[in-house]
């Protein structure tokens, strides 16, 4: 796939009012090979949280160890390392063992849900996800600062 055109640095999220100060914000790592999904997640969450992204499971594990996020949103079907394997790796690392992981995937079959929980994920959201429902799940695990 050709490299994407040089876009302005940082997420081009739509204006949503003043976000909470960076110092008070919890960090979320979003891992997905779809730029579109990352854009949606960043736009929905960046007002209340600091959002960092990764494009595959391998990059996701490396970023989780480096950034120590408070929560991870993990896709399942990704190149180089799928979401289940990425979560298993995270659970084996002392630095990332206890970070809650919400799987975000098109796969809703019971077998996949079971595999997800067995690999160590904390919760499960199917795509296409409902924005308010995803926000509610994230907020239930990471209450945002009071003014966000």
């Amino acid at each position: 796939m050709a490299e994407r055109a040089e876009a302005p640095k940082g997420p081009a999220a739509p204006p949503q009012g003043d976000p909470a100060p960076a110092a008070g914000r919890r960090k979320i790592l979003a891992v997905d090979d779809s730029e579109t999904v990352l854009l949606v997640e960043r736009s929905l969450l960046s007002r209340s949280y600091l959002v960092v992204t990764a494009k595959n499971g391998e990059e996701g594990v490396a970023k989780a160890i480096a950034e120590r996020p408070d929560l991870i949103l993990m896709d399942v079907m990704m190149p180089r390392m799928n979401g289940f394997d990425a979560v298993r790796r995270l659970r084996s690392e002392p630095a990332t063992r206890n970070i809650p992981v919400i799987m975000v995937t098109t796969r809703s079959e019971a077998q996949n849900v079971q595999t997800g929980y067995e690999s160590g994920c904390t919760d499960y959201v199917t795509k296409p996800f409902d924005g308010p429902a995803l926000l509610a799940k994230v907020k239930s695990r990471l209450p945002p600062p009071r003014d966000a």
Partner: protein
Amino acid sequence: MIETDGLATAEKVLSSAQQHGQGLRAVNEKLADLVSALRDQKERLARYAQAGGTPPPLAPDAPRDGIAPSEVGERPAPAEMSFARAALEQGRREHDTIRERLAEIQKDNERLCEEYAAIQQQNSDLVTLFAAMERLYGAAGRDDALAAIQEIVVNLVGSEELAIFELSKDGRRLLPAHAFGLGPAELRDVAVGCGTIGRVAADGVPFVAADGARAATDPPRLTACIPLKLGERVTGALAVYGLLDHKHALRGLDRELLALIEKHAAAAMRTSALREAAPDRPA
């Protein structure tokens, strides 16, 4: 804004309720004093009744308990009773007023919660549409633009079976340009005007299957077929087959996403191809 107005109204009502509460408290204290004075009077009268004879009047400097010395034995109890009744009645009226106000506030609160949920959903839908547009027009080249369309259909609409067709130079056939989740049988050229896909390309009118009617399409299982347009000119088509298992029907947002693809996908493919062909030009 809605939340600010609702909060301001709630604060005013709370302040008003607190003032009423304080008024009721003052009335209550007066009634308690009165009851205490009446009780003392009763005990005094009972003692003298037992001893026989009439009780002496209260000494001039004796504690008044709200009763003037010249009125001892003469001030009628009914006056104080009627004062107590009036105070009680006023208290009851104020209590009813506060209850009505609280019921109004509760209704306002429920309405505000519904409005907030609707606005939250609308905001989420706008975010999704923005992300789709950003992804389309941010594509680095034609292949990336086709991948963007696939991402939108798979992740935002909810189907993992799709085909993108481009119109041939002579305008008579639709040629498969990109597909995901489909077998070779579904990736054939389509004559413009033939079958559901061909008709969409000929008419420029999108097709969306009504619930349960996908079997009647040609080819079968078509959930939607959208013309790809540059302005009013049809340059191709997007065919969406089936839906994810947990997705039962297309929603309003899905139709908006498909409308966005109809209007902008072809232009995005064109601009990204130009950008790819001239990499030294500023974006």
